């Protein structure tokens, strides 16, 4: 138990102290962000962006900023960071501190640094792309909190025409009770460059903790980014993941999220399709059990003609868990010939589970192909009967059906080892379901 006298001050009252080594602009933005954070209220239930949800679950007053963990905890985290076998780079953060880094397999010219190092070594690129998109889906307050406190996470800059074959893998651990981490991921893929990045968010043990993550993706003309984030925090933790994507001409961005952990997990994903021929895929898998809540908000914003986006979110719900999906496709005036799709499917496996979907469209252009669909239903009795008739027991049959339900999300991931890793993580969660 932490000693009450020396208990660290809550996040809500701790003003950030940016290090003197960091560029002036960054220190200024952090200070301004703190003022913004302080001035904004926690969104209320009347806020459309928080419909069916509860922003109080992210109340920063309950957490303090993570301080370096004891060496034993760091060692344990490093030992448990089992992911891909072949990586271009591998970094492990524990309580926002970099504890292990292996970047020797990176192709020449590719920058993969911690945010702090990148701010010092490549301030211009970072300044140009770092958190430039307004958090328009309801979490402006928490985005400001992130900006005020952020130190950890990585910046990846891939120069023109460079293809990074193997993924860059990053682990973010929280090792202390009630601690908050602020991981950042900034990926800039130059013209025709290509890169894959995986973020894992985890806690050491079942502790209450808060991961307040923000990710920015910029794909220059012809660039390709594949990003996956695996949220496997402990079941008492709180997760927030805000991402924004800027897709320039003929670029492609694929983003996957796998929501397995945390008591309350909120994600806000914005895709801005800025250049002709750009494409964004947004895919998500959630497997909430017990009383877990997964709250996902998305925006597919088509600002240029001849752009495409495809969103597929699948939730398999158990016990008294809840999911909230609110998606919006907006097609700007003049963004003709847009193809935009949005699908949210819920497989409800218990009487007490609850699925809420708010798929939205706002179309201001012509020659547009847009559709959205949302379904909620239980496992079909016929499918179950078919499997059982072949001698497979009820439990295994249901598991097979859920795996089948999730299959078409995974098949969109064309990186074989990464897909295998995600399948494994899903399998281990499914195995824990009685």
């Amino acid at each position, binding site marked *: 138990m932490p000693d009450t006298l020396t208990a660290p001050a809550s996040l809500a009252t701790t003003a950030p102290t940016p290090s003197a080594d960091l560029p002036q602009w960054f220190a200024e933005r952090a200070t301004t962000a703190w003022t913004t954070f302080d001035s904004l209220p926690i969104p209320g239930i009347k806020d*459309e962006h928080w419909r069916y949800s509860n922003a109080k679950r992210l109340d920063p007053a309950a957490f303090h900023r993570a301080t370096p963990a004891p060496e034993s905890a760091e060692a344990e985290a490093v030992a448990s960071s089992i992911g891909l076998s072949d990586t271009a780079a591998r970094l492990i953060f524990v309580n926002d501190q970099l504890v292990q880094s292996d970047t020797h397999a990176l192709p020449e010219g590719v920058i993969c640094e911690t945010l702090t190092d990148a701010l010092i070594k490549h301030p211009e690129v970072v300044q140009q792309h770092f958190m430039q998109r307004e958090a328009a889906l309801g979490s402006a307050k928490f985005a400001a909190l992130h900006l005020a406190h952020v130190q950890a996470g990585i910046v990846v800059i891939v120069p023109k025409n460079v293809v990074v074959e193997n993924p860059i893998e990053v682990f973010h651990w929280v090792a202390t009770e009630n601690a908050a981490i602020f991981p950042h991921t900034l990926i800039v893929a130059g013209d025709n460059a290509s890169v894959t990045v995986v973020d894992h968010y985890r806690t050491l043990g079942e502790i209450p903790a808060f991961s307040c993550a923000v990710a920015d993706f910029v794909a220059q003309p012809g660039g390709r980014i594949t990003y996956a984030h695996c949220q496997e925090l402990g079941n008492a933790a709180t997760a927030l993941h805000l991402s924004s994507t800027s897709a320039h001409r003929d670029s492609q961005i694929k983003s996957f999220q796998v929501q397995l952990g945390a008591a309350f997990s909120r994600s806000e994903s914005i895709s801005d399709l800025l250049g002709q021929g750009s494409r964004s895929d947004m895919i998500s898998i959630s497997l909430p059990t017990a009383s877990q809540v997964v709250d996902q908000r998305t925006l597919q914003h088509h600002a240029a003609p001849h752009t495409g986006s495809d969103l597929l979110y699948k939730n398999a719900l158990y016990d008294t868990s809840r999911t909230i999906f609110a998606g919006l496709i907006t097609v700007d005036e003049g963004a003709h010939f847009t193809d935009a799709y949005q699908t949210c499917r819920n497989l409800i496996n218990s009487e007490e589970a609850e699925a809420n979907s708010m798929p939205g469209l706002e179309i201001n252009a012509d020659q547009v192909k847009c559709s959205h669909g949302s379904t909620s*239903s239980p496992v079909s009795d016929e499918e179950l009967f078919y499997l059982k008739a072949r001698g497979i027991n009820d439990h295994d049959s249901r598991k097979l059906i859920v795996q089948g339900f999730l299959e078409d999300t995974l098949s969109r991931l064309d990186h074989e080892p990464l897909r295998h890793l995600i399948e494994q993580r899903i399998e281990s969660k499914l195995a824990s379901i009685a």
Partner: protein
Amino acid sequence: MVTALDNDITDIKADNIGDFTFPERNKFDAGFGVSPRTVDYISDVKNDPDWIREFRHKALEIFNSKPMPTHWATKDLDNIHFEEFRYYLSDGQKPKRSWDEVPEDVKRTFERLGIPEQERKFLAGVEAQYDSEAAYSNVKKVLEDQGVIFVNSTEGLHKYPEIFRPWFGKVIPTSDNKFSALNSAVFSGGSFIYVPKGVKVSHPLQAYFRINSEQFGQFERTLIIADEGSEIMYMEGCTAPKFETSTLHSAVVELVAMKGAKIQYVTVQNWSSNVFNLVTKRGIAHEDAEVRWIDCNIGSRLTMKYPGVIMKGKRARGEVISIALANSGQHQDTGAKMIHLADDTTSNVVWKSISIGEGRSTYRGQVHIPKHLKGCKNNTECDALLINSSSRTDTYPAISVKGNKHATQHEASVSQVSEDQIFYLMQRGLTEAEAMSLSVNGFINDLVKEFPMEYSVELKRLIDLEMEGSVG
């Protein structure tokens, strides 16, 4: 025989069917703005019982305390200035039972809109409302003999309080939203219908709502009760002439379908393009009952209307069939609410919109299936058609499902009339406009079929008129 009135309106073009007006000759005018005095004025004129007067005052307080719902709805609502409307206008005459007794200008109005003709042809009863009060009301004798009540709401609450009062304001509570509160404070006119047990009304009943006066707010209140095993189809039509300033129409419609009853409520509205049309419509369906809203929204500056069905009894069914057509300067914000409160209830929403020029059509819907129910099903389909490059459409559904014994599906699509299709039709000698019009009619054809024959013909014609000049 050509009368002076005929001459007055002969120069009106046939394609502006509702766009004409007669001089006002109001005996009662509650003046501009809404205050406790306005409410008292209306209550005095209408000789309200005390409980209605109280109900109105309370509603006014709720109206004043509620903010505009602009946190989710369009900011255009802020352009409504409540102090610039008149809330009650009437010539002080009782509704006429015979068409001949109706004042000449009112009669001309409705004759131009084809009301008596339709009545003779196929309607079982008609009620025609001119500004605040009913001008004409008639129900066929055979229905009267069966115990069917079809009167205006004032007569309903005076003559049949034992049926009226238990359900009045129960389906849509005063505090439901700002506009239902406003309606509750100043309501006047609208229909009250009661269909006794087992009576199946074979022909539709119809009401016609007409705004004749400028800067006027029409607040009709309709309550339809279909007792066990009965069936009723009700149709309403609405028009207003085009004034320089805006007009407000804010109705409240409550439907109660008792066990095994069936209510179909058909609306075709063709408001002029400066009417704010903010309507609350909801029905309760008890065991095995069915409530269907068949809705066509054309015209108005802003329509916000989300007919709802509360499925309160087992196996109840709710349906909304909706067509919206938004032309330049218009915003059709329509949709449906389906609240499942019992096992094995099913609901269906089919919504189609057409946006022309700079028109904007919006679908907003809610499907709610709470805990501990089983066998609930919902199907929602939304299809939007964009005619011009500056046309706009939005879809905002909200679906909440608890438990694993239900099935819901929602699908929406946005499309254009394909160039191939237009080319094909033009090859066969149609002009581009005709080809477009034919395609649009094809797009909504399956829904138009749900309307009674006379209405579906009218509907196609209205759509053709709206389409004029949109292409080429």
